[in-house]
Structures are given as C-alpha cells and as structure tokens.
C-alpha cells in the first residue's frame, strides 16, 4: 500500500471526498478515480458503466468498480449527462490500476460548470487524506 507521500495527485484535475477526479476537456468533463482509490481497492477486475445518455445529479451513483477486495460505487463529481464511456476498460479494467488519470471512466456534459469549481484541488485533497 502506498504511503500518502507516494501518491500521484496531479494538479490539473479536481478531486471529491469519494476519491473521484474530474478534468475539463473542452466542453466536456472526464471522470475517473484517484491514485488513492485504485491503491486502496487493489486489482480492479470489472467496471460497471452507465449508459451513454444517462443523466445524474452531482454525488449520484453512476457505476461501480469491482476489485478483488470489494465493490466500490462511483459517484459523479458534478451533475451532467454521460456522453462517452471508456470502452478500453471493458476489456482491460486493470488499466485503472496502471494509470488512474490517463484511464478515465466516463465523460460527461456538465449541467452546471460552477460545480467543478467547488471540487477540491490536489492540495486540499491531500489535506483531507491526511485527516
């Protein structure tokens, strides 16, 4: 298990209390899980995706990750409509363990971009992890 100072927490994404990250890519936002989340979960063996076109509120469950240890629900960092899912993860869910930031899970069209600004930056997220 990684020590907190070994975690990769890039500054170009925002984080949630549930250990998801969000990153603005043009007019859409990509969503994934943090290095802390993938490290805690261990080997991810299955990703349960929503359907493209589904809409969720901020904080609503939109899917789950199955790891050898547990089933972990995924909560959407900001409200919006699913516009893409990362199909690569259907065949190779372990990509999330390899690089949780390159390997995003879903892409959404945000309903309210101001919700993004409320998310934690890397420093605030690290503060939370340090408790």
């Amino acid at each position, binding site marked *: *298990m990684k020590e907190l100072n070994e975690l990769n927490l890039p500054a170009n994404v925002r984080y949630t209390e549930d250990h998801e990250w969000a990153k603005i890519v043009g007019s859409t936002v990509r969503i994934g899980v943090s290095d802390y989340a993938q490290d805690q979960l*261990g*080997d991810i*063996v*299955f990703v*349960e995706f929503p359907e493209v076109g589904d809409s969720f509120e901020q904080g609503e469950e939109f899917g*789950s990750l*199955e790891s*050898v*240890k*547990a*089933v972990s629900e995924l909560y959407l960092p900001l409200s919006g409509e699913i516009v893409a899912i990362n199909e690569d993860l259907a065949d190779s869910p*372990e990509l999330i*363990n390899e690089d949780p930031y390159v390997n995003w899970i879903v892409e959404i069209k945000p309903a309210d971009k101001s919700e993004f600004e409320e998310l934690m930056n890397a420093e605030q997220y690290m503060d939370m992890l340090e408790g």
Partner: protein
Amino acid sequence: MEELKRTALYSWHVEHGANIAPFGEYEMPLWYTGGAKAEHLAVISGAGLFDTSHMAVVTVAGAKARELIQYCFSKDLDHCVGLKKGPLVIGRCVYGVFLNPDGTVLDDAIVYQVAEKGYMVVVNAGMGGAIAERLEKYNTDYNADVDDLTDQVGKMDVQGPAAAKIVKKLLADPEKVLANMAYFSFKGGFAGIDAAEPVTLVDGTSLMLSRTGYTGEFGFEIFIDKDDFVRVWQEVMAAGEEFGALPCGLAARDSLRAGAVLPLSHQDIGNWLFGANPWLFALPFTDDQKGFTKKFVGSEAVAATGKVLHTLPFAGYDPRKIVVSDETFVTDMEGKNIGRILTCATDMAIGRVDGVIYSVASITEDGCPAAFVPKGLSCGFVQLEEDLAPGTEVILTDGRKKKITVEIRADVRPRRTARRPMKEML
C-alpha cells in the same frame, strides 16, 4: 479493542509493500505491490508463498491419544488413508472437522500422525485454545497430553506447480525427501515435534514438509521453528524467483480456495448442522454410505435425518461479485428468496467460452481455445433451503439494486494440480 497480533514476518510484509488488514486476531497481508490477481495467477502457473503462521497447532500425545482424537474428530483414523481407506500412520495426515454435540462445526482441521503415540492438529487462526479445550473436555478417560502451540510455530505455504522445484533447491537430500511423497503425506519435524525421519535444509535447518495446502494447487505447507522462520521464508523466496514465485496475501488465498471448492471455516461451515455440503468426505461413512464406522462427538446429530440446509458451489459469468453482508441473499430466477450467500470471491484464472469454464492452465485438448485469456469469474458458496442440481441458475443480490446471475456447479476451476503425482512436478 485488544491489540492485534503480528506474525514474525510482519516487518517483511510491510517492507514488501503489503496492504495489511485485520484478519481475526492478526494483522495480515491482503496483497503485495503486484496485486492479488498476479498472486493468484502465480500460484496457478508458477508458485506463491503464503505466511500462514497465524494458524494454530495443537499437539496430542500419550498411550490413548489416538482414542481421544477418534472421539473428538470426524475422520476415522483407522479407515482414512488412500482409496483403500487404510489406517492413519506416521507420515500421513487427514482432513476432517471437530463437531459440537449438536452437529454444528467447531472448526475444520488436519490431523497429522507424527509418532507412534503422537499427533499434531492444525486448525484455523485463533482456534488453538478452543480445540485444546475441546480435547481436554473429553480427556478424562484418555489422559493424553494436549498442548496448544499457538504463536509458537512458524508456518508458510509454498503453493503452485513449481513448489517442488523450489523446495528441491533448498533441501539437503531432496531425492530422498521428495521421492514418492503422496498428497496428504509429510516428512520431518521441528521444535516440539520430533521427526521419525528428519528433513533438513542445506543450511541445516530442520522443518516439517507437508504435501497439503489451501489453494487447490500442488504444493506444501511448511512447519518450522519460529526462530528459523523469517530466514527460511527469505530462502524460499530467493529459490522461487526463477519460477516467478510471488509472496501472496489473504485475497489470493481466498480466491484460489473458492475456485478449488474448499470451505473457509466459520463462513462456509460453522454454527449450523454439518450436512448436505461438498465436504461430506470429512465424515467416516461406511462403504455402503449408510452409516458411520465410529461414534464421535456430533455423530448422532449429523446422522439424524431431518431438515438440513444445502451448501452448494456456484460460478458466475463474469468477475462481478456481491460483497456478503447481512443484507445479501439468494433468489430464484423469479426473485423469490431461497437462501443466503456464504462466500463470493473472484477466481481470476478462469473464464467462460460458450458457457464452459476454462482456466489459464487449460489446454487445447480440453477444448480450450488457444488464444483464451480469462477475465475472471465470481464463485463461492450459497446455502439454500432446497437442493438444486448443477447447471441451475440463481441470482445473488446485495439486497438493493445489484443482482448477478450465477450457476450452481459441481466444481469450479478446472485443471487443478493439487493431486498431481510428485514425479511429474520435479
């Protein structure tokens, strides 16, 4: 809360990146840096090394030690070895259960005959005291010496098809030790257990080498003096490197044993009547299967005909599982609650092709496509009111919205190596 115990290897585990979690009274590794999937696969294709020194050892010695065990343990020590059901002798061991008088399970165990009048009982973590107490309770007529060696014995499991090749490198006289070593036999001893025929390593260490395990794969359980334990673990790790051996945590141990249809005590067998499950070979049936060859604690209760719950293995269709809790249950395909989930894990070495389960160890002669890459299947045990035939589908649910369809099975992971002849594995 009482402070958790640590095995002698705790620092080694931490230094090697183990994700540590509480397991019973112990802090144990769940997996190391490579992850549980790599560990699970290493045991199927090469080897894995497990720290199992949290398990408990109880010794029973004396003129009537055998009679005491006969009365407390489910297996008939006079009719249990091999197809011909010969008597347990020095160098042989058997799997069975300690039942309560009402037919429920206190724990499962392997009983080793280590001397003419001496036995070693290996039970689950934290159970040494309860088993010693049980034996003492019935000891009045037998006067045996019962010793709980909990936390005094080092134990590691070397499991996987390369296990013999690894052990061979370390043994002082490998040809003699490994020759014709049968499944459920052992050689050697350690502090507290005098060996009829000692097993020593090149470095002079004495140990007990047992051809047993909890993964369904070929391998050994090694019992060793606690002072030698960490050093020998490192020697085994080094010897295993060329075979891709990995240290393995409890997650891989659980997923391997689930795919091998082996029970976890207090989860798949426990405080309910021992019956209608895949492990009835633990009972001392007569040849006609109608009665028992001996009377023992719990025998009358398990022999009585009455309502019994059915414990059945299952496998799913993908790696998704249900994390078992008080809210989870099993339904038929119409949604009617028919029982509970005991174990649900993911065997990462198997997958389905047109419904048929293959393993990474499967070969084309089995019908397995050459390019087969398994994604893993959920598997484990359900406990149902009624018996269901293999092939029947049921639904596991978390009690909320998650539902996965699984198939009742007679067996799960094909091509297991546990029973392969020693000569094929050297």
